[in-house]
């Protein structure tokens, strides 16, 4: 079955802006070795044909549950994991075609911030040495100039410059995360992959780091690929959101559209599962049956069809791979049962479909109405 996409031609940015990063049909399959001879017997399809664009100065969030391939996508873009196939263009440069030396040079522009504040800093290096390393590698500063730059970077992320001589174990999780951000900033990148940078932090610290990332973006014109599983934090930081499920992007839309009119049934379920801090307001909830299937053996057709709650789900969903198509301006989704779709009702019927497409949007998926007002009574922040 061919996996056709309707988007490969035009830019996938808001209003068709020129992208700084352009990813097409990115695929990463991890071979499963069997037996003592290491025969390859199948593959885990961690990322399976992912396409998106990121505009300069934009934050694109990638959300999904564990195992959906969001982290692998982030690392494959930086070639920290070599992609199986596809294309990644950064500022017009073909990232996947670069040799080792060119790739190291490119890494000045593309950086990453990690989730785990404990394993992401070398315990045997001082904070100063960690932040300084990028300067040394790329010959950006030496000696006293490098010292001064390190202190400046530490201040910029809200740490005292005199901390440069201390070691990671002397710092709290939030402070370590700031060090990781300073390290990424040291080479003055244009683009940062933030791989769940606040997931391991306490609520109040999480807010500090999110605000820091937003300030840095504003001051330096950075672009972020912000990987997260927390839909509420994403709404605060992202311009656009991509939802991933089993290695596929199943929906991609501006924040406002994603949270007020989610199209893909999986996105709807994900949104309805977020606990709302409104005691006494009993919300209906879409409870998905069962667990995410194994990416080594994904379901046929639409990968979400075995758990889907769309009333029109039928045999066609198991037979036809839904294209990620632009259902509304700037709003891409992969579902043949949510009109409009290039997969006609006739084609669906030919594949065994019995229920014609019919737009479905359960109220339980909505936390705010289409005009942006909160749907239920929301807590007003303290005076």
């Amino acid at each position, binding site marked *: 079955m061919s996996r056709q996409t309707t988007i490969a031609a035009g830019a996938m940015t808001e209003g068709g802006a020129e992208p700084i990063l352009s990813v097409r049909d990115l695929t990463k399959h991890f071979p499963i070795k069997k037996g003592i001879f290491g025969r390859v017997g199948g593959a885990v399809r961690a990322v399976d044909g992912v396409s998106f664009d990121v505009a300069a100065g934009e934050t694109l969030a990638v959300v999904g*549950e*564990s195992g959906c391939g969001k982290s692998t996508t982030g690392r494959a873009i930086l070639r920290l994991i070599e992609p199986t196939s596809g294309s990644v263009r950064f500022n017009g440069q073909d990232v996947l075609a670069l040799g080792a030396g060119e790739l190291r040079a490119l890494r000045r522009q593309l950086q990453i911030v990690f989730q785990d504040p404990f394993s992401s800093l070398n315990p045997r290096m001082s904070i100063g040495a960690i932040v300084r390393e990028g300067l040394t590698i790329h010959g950006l500063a030496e000696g006293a100039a490098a010292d001064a730059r390190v202190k400046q970077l530490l201040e910029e992320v*809200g*740490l*005292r410059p005199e*901390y440069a001589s201390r070691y990671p174990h*002397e*710092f*709290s*999780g*939030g*402070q370590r995360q*700031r060090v990781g951000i300073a390290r990424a900033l040291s080479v003055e990148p244009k683009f940062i992959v933030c791989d769940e940078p606040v997931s391991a932090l*306490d*609520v*109040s*610290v*999480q*807010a*500090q780091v*999110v*605000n820091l990332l*937003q300030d840095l973006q504003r001051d330096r014109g950075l672009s972020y690929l912000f990987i997260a*599983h*927390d*839909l*509420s*934090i994403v*709404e*605060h930081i992202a311009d656009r959101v991509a939802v991933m499920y089993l290695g596929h992007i199943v929906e991609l839309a501006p924040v406002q559209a994603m*949270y007020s009119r989610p199209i893909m049934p999986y996105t709807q*379920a*994900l*949104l*309805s*599962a*977020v*606990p*709302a*801090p*409104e*005691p*006494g307001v009993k*919300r209906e*909830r879409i*409870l*998905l049956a*069962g*667990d*995410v299937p194994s990416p080594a053996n994904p379901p046929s057709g639409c990968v979400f069809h075995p758990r889907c709650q769309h009333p029109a789900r039928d045999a066609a969903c198991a037979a036809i791979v839904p294209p990620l198509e632009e259902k509304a301006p700037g709003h891409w989704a992969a579902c043949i049962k949510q009109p409009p779709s290039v997969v006609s009702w006739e084609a669906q019927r030919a594949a065994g479909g019995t229920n014609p497409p019919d737009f479905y949007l359960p109220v339980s998926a909505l*936390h*705010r109405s289409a005009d942006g007002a*909160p*749907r*239920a009574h*929301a*807590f007003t*922040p*303290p*005076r």
Partner: protein
Amino acid sequence: MTAPPLLELDDLHTFFYTDTGVARSVDGVSFSVGAGETVGVVGESGCGKSVTALSILRLVRAPGRIEPGSAIRFEGKDLMTLDEGEMQHIRGNRIAMVFQEPMTALNPVFTVGEQIAEVARIHGGMSRKEARAKAVEMLTLVGIPAPEQRAGEYPHQLSGGMRQRVVIAMALVMNPALIIADEPTTALDVTIQAQILELMADLTRRLGTSILLITHDLGVVAENCSRVIVMYAGEVVEEATAVELFGRAHMPYTEGLLGAMPRVGGESERLATIPGTVPPPTAWPAGCRFRDRCPYSWDRCEREHPPLYQIGAGHTSRCHLAEEPEHRNHPHPPLAAQRGASAA
């Protein structure tokens, strides 16, 4: 008040005697849980909520110690006076615990059926055959499909959500009066979290089990708990019904937590933060422990450690604002922010 509460903590102190000094992790905590009630304990890491949970079951290990003078009353008995044998009877039989990471709570070399059956045999004195049937019954109860087959599988063959269901099944075998759930959904994805919380709510409705739900997630608390206890720096700083707490938080720390919490459908572009960090438990500040991070603090907060003030029906707050509310009109940048937002 009529019947005495199921569980009552009275002035619980649990200290850790570490190389760097005495960590007063739990420093005078009192609260109660009624029969059939779901009570939430929220706070950030280091506030003492998990140590409180371990203390109730007397599972604190050296260098930690529950200090003399602490009382843990459960079903009319003071657990502090029981010997280890009697305590073992309480654990598993009357109070069960569900942990954050289901993989480490299960033994990887036994099937899940065997592990549930073992509980039934040890605590319930059942025969092998009865215990085996009980295991399948429990798996059915927690909504595991094909329970007969699943009972024969090993923990690594199950997904995270399934494992947590198994752990809950183990906790429920002896039909305990109280389940202490320490961050039971933190390691799970949001859709699986929804399934597990739904399951727990359903079980309390059907079995009348009380739950002490320990979490950092205010959203989880709002949807599942009738009453909420907020902990900070080893103390209870606010206690109220969930509706009251989310609608009319009193303690500035609680306000800060609610403001910092991102929420789906929220309007504000920028998240509120609480400047500074939690002080180390080896050196709690004198006076109010939140003073340095508080936008309303005044000289009294430095001098005088605030008691838990009664500020409404069932609503207490450890803040002098209860007596001098006029200071709320003069917010200022907290001391921690003046010294640099993230000073160590």
